[in-house]
């Protein structure tokens, strides 16, 4: 027994699990996450996939990871750098040790370090992976995870050695449960349910986990135990959702609230595909999740469905948006509702498919021929993808317009606790279907919303023809009249501009009356900026945050808010796209804070620019 253990209280911890795909790191991470969430910690998670599906085991390209941050407050992000690294083999250690915080520690499986594995990880011959040079002086705890797991399962005589070895992730989970003073009860219940038909597997994993906890306590490898108290969270029922799952469910919710069927026309593309998969899982809602032959067909079939009266959507990533451009112009001029979700990834061209970026904002704004205004909104967190998919649907249906929702790979794959809304909290989404043939003009506009009416093909007495040619401002008949064209181009622009009156004002997090510095962001940078701004404010520094959820049109108090601050820093994962939009629209001085590495901002990177302005 180790009598010298201390129980330390922490505000938050970042843990990264890393191993081969067969090591069950995501499962282990998810179990730890669930256990933490159950006692009320705030949690955000992010898987890190290699670009190749099955690179050779034991090599650095084959390593996949899963990072999470838990805290006693809103943690906002999966964390910049891990405090704890779980590395199941030498390659995992070698690939991740540089990210480990200097005062953190790594736990690795001592049994995985045979000569062959060390060589596969790319260490030169004769190099000791645990030498100071290789660990960069950081603490590495090598625990005999595999052998201890096998020893723990000795009594399971019916299991093969290979099957027993597969329980090592639960042994590792046991180590962590002890280290972070967590009850394993939640995971025990989960295992019993998961393996209800294979009780031996459940028992073996439970045994391995319990032995892991005992080993952690008795081995003397760990000097401290840690405790992270629960966060003060809005009461409610929660579950984990990735951003893409949330977006898919947001669309389904919007369709239900509009009394429409959902139609998602799509084509597989990383990192957006799981939205299609999520919607396809819910056929009992009479959704049509249609995987088409290409990106163009994906949006075009959605346009055909929108015309027919469905709540239609298409989901993709940047290269797909490039292909959909012409069809986006069509749906804009037809004035039909359509939700277009771009889960952004690293560009240009094929770029960095599995990495994150915010470099498609200008594409969303201007990536079409002609004057083609389409509202643009952005989600700021995984769970916000639900709200923003719902909001995109609301705008599309109310204003008879396509709407672009920008998320990104970081949000789409990342997960956080999602507070399940009461269905009655979600607003009804009215539609403006017309059935009365009397005096119908297909492009007559509602005086308030400037939207035209929606007529489903098949409605008696209202047969009409619409198309991509310019049309008469009332009858919708093809018109090449110069004045009519001028009128229509301006009317379509005015309709979208008018949406500014129907979206929330910008909010200032910080100095309400303005002040020294404001950090402006949009989309997934919210969490990183918020964490940093909170730290500045705790130190009494005059830094505020303003975050855009609606980008086109901008909220109507935008200029008023910008003018309140002496220095406007615009932080985004591109070379300054929102920055350019703000300058062009409001002629304000701004300071771009840009990063384009396929990775989210760290707090240090924000500090590097903002500290100099203080």
């Amino acid at each position, binding site marked *: 027994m180790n009598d010298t253990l201390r129980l330390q209280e922490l505000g938050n911890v970042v843990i990264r699990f890393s191993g081969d795909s067969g090591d069950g790191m995501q499962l282990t991470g998810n179990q730890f996450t*669930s256990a933490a*969430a*159950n006692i*009320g910690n705030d949690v955000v998670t992010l898987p890190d996939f290699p670009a190749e599906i099955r690179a050779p085991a034991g090599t650095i390209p084959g390593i996949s990871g899963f990072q999470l941050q838990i805290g006693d407050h809103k943690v906002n992000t999966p964390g910049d750098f891990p405090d704890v690294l779980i590395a199941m083999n030498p390659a995992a250690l070698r690939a991740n040790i540089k990210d480990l915080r200097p005062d953190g520690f790594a736990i690795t499986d001592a049994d995985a370090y045979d000569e062959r594995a060390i060589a596969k990880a790319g260490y030169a011959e004769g190099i000791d992976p645990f030498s100071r040079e290789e660990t960069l002086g950081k603490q590495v705890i090598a625990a005999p995870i595999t052998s201890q797991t096998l020893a723990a399962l000795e009594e399971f005589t019916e299991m093969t050695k290979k099957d027993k070895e597969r329980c090592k992730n639960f042994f590792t989970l046991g180590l962590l449960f002890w280290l972070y003073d967590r009850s394993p009860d939640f995971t025990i219940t*989960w295992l019993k349910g998961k393996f209800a038909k294979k009780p031996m597997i459940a028992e073996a994993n439970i045994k391995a986990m319990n032995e892991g906890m005992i080993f952690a306590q008795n081995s003397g490898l760990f000097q401290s135990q840690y405790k992270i108290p629960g966060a003060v*969270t809005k*009461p*409610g*029922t*929660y*579950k*984990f959702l990735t951003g893409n799952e949330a977006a898919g*469910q947001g669309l*389904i*919710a919007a369709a*239900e609230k509009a009394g429409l069927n959902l*139609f998602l*026309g799509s084509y597989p593309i990383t990192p957006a595909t799981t939205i299609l998969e999520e919607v396809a899982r*819910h*056929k*009992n*809602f*009479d*959704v*049509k999740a*249609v995987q*088409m*032959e*290409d990106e*163009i*067909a994906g949006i*075009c*079939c*959605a*346009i*055909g*469905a*929108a*015309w*027919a*009266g469905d709540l*239609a959507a298409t989901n993709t990533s940047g290269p797909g948006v490039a292909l959909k451009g*012409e069809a986006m112009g*069509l749906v804009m001029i*037809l004035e039909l509702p359509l939700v277009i979700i771009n889960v952004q990834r690293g560009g240009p061209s094929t770029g960095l498919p599995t990495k994150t970026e915010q470099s498609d904002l200008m594409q969303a704004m201007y990536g079409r021929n002609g004057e083609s205004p389409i509202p643009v909104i952005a989600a700021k967190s995984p769970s916000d993808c639900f709200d923003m998919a719902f909001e995109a649907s609301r705008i599309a249906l109310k204003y008879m317009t396509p709407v672009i929702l920008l998320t990104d790979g970081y949000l789409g794959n990342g997960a956080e606790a999602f507070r*399940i809304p009461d*269905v009655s909290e*979600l607003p009804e989404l009215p539609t403006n279907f017309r059935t009365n043939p009397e005096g119908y003009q297909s492009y007559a506009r509602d005086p308030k919303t400037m939207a035209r009416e929606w007529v489903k*093909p*098949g*409605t*008696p*007495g209202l*047969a*009409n*023809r*619409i*198309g*991509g040619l310019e049309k008469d401002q009332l009858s919708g008949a*093809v018109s090449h009249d110069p004045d009519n064209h001028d009128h229509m181009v301006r009317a379509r622009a005015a309709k979208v501009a008018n949406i500014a009156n129907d979206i929330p004002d910008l909010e200032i997090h910080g100095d309400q009356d303005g002040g020294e510095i404001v950090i402006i962001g949009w989309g997934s940078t919210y969490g990183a900026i918020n964490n940093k701004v909170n730290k500045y404010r705790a130190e009494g520094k005059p830094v505020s945050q303003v975050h855009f959820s609606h980008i086109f049109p901008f909220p109507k108090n935008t200029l008023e808010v910008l003018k309140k601050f002496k220095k406007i820093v615009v932080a985004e994962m591109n070379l300054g796209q929102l920055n350019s939009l703000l300058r062009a629209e409001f002629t304000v001085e701004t300071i771009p804070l840009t990063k384009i590495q396929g990775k989210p901002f760290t707090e240090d990177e924000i500090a590097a620019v903002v500290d100099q302005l203080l």
Partner: protein
Amino acid sequence: MNAESKYTKKDFVPPGDVKWCAGCGDYAILAQVQKVLAETGISPDQFAFISGIGCSSRFPYYMNCYGLHGIHGRALAIATGTKVANPDLHVWVAMGDGDGLAIGGNHFIHAVRRNVGIKSILMDNRIYGLTKGQFSPTSQRGAKVKTAPMGTVEDPIDPISLSLSLGGSFVARTTDRDVKHMAEVLRRSQEHDGFSMVQVLQNCPIFNDGAFDTWVSKGKEEYVLKLVHGEKMIFGLDNEKCIVRNGFSPKVALVAEVDEKDIIIHDEFATDSGLAGFLSQLNGTNGMPMALGIFRQIDHPAFEAEYRRQNAEAAATKGKGDLATMLHEGETWTL
């Protein structure tokens, strides 16, 4: 035909002028579609006409039905969405050879393969008309046009052969000059449950005049084989020629010189893809006659019906979709 139809052709004619060139074969196609649909007894507003870009793609504007004039090549993709969203609509697509087979070729093959319940008319004039005379994917090798002043150096697509190879459930060819034949093919197309591909050989009097003269002008009987279900494949001015087998290929022979039993009998409903491949060779090349008629019509589940079936099945087994249930599915916790 529905003798009691309360609609006439006029009910399918919208206000406004038709703006195709004088003498264009598209006029005949439009007139026959209007006539055939009037005879179905179905109200014009139950039809949705969808098109891409090109001369033929103006078609929806000239039908007094719901119409969507889309973008180049994408009509079948748009129509797929409309049909899946509302399987009760009668969805028609008008497309040209460039629209349907060049820029829209990908959508063409997948629409045929999926068997979406769309009635398509491929108005094939073997030329780009709206852009004023460039070669199309159905232009014959060597065609001298503005973009190939020395003649094209590529072989054409045969849309019948392509459709048959994709398992097309309704594949037919007709011409803009034989309006009775066209009407019958269109009527059968409208009645078909699944994707129908009707190629209409259509004359462009401006940029490719006379492209189909061999098969539509005086003396055409020598070169045209009318496919009629259950009948022998016999043609010629005096019905003196016939089609027999030569290995896996058709061969033209004289009726007088073959055993009557060897003359191929047409079977529209044969599911045998070998016969389909055999028939597809009757396209006016290699000494073969141009076959007109319905090459193949088979029963095959329509795409939209399968979506409907699966959704009904999901609702029956999982229960009709309920938002609160969906939102609470999986692991949850309450704070």
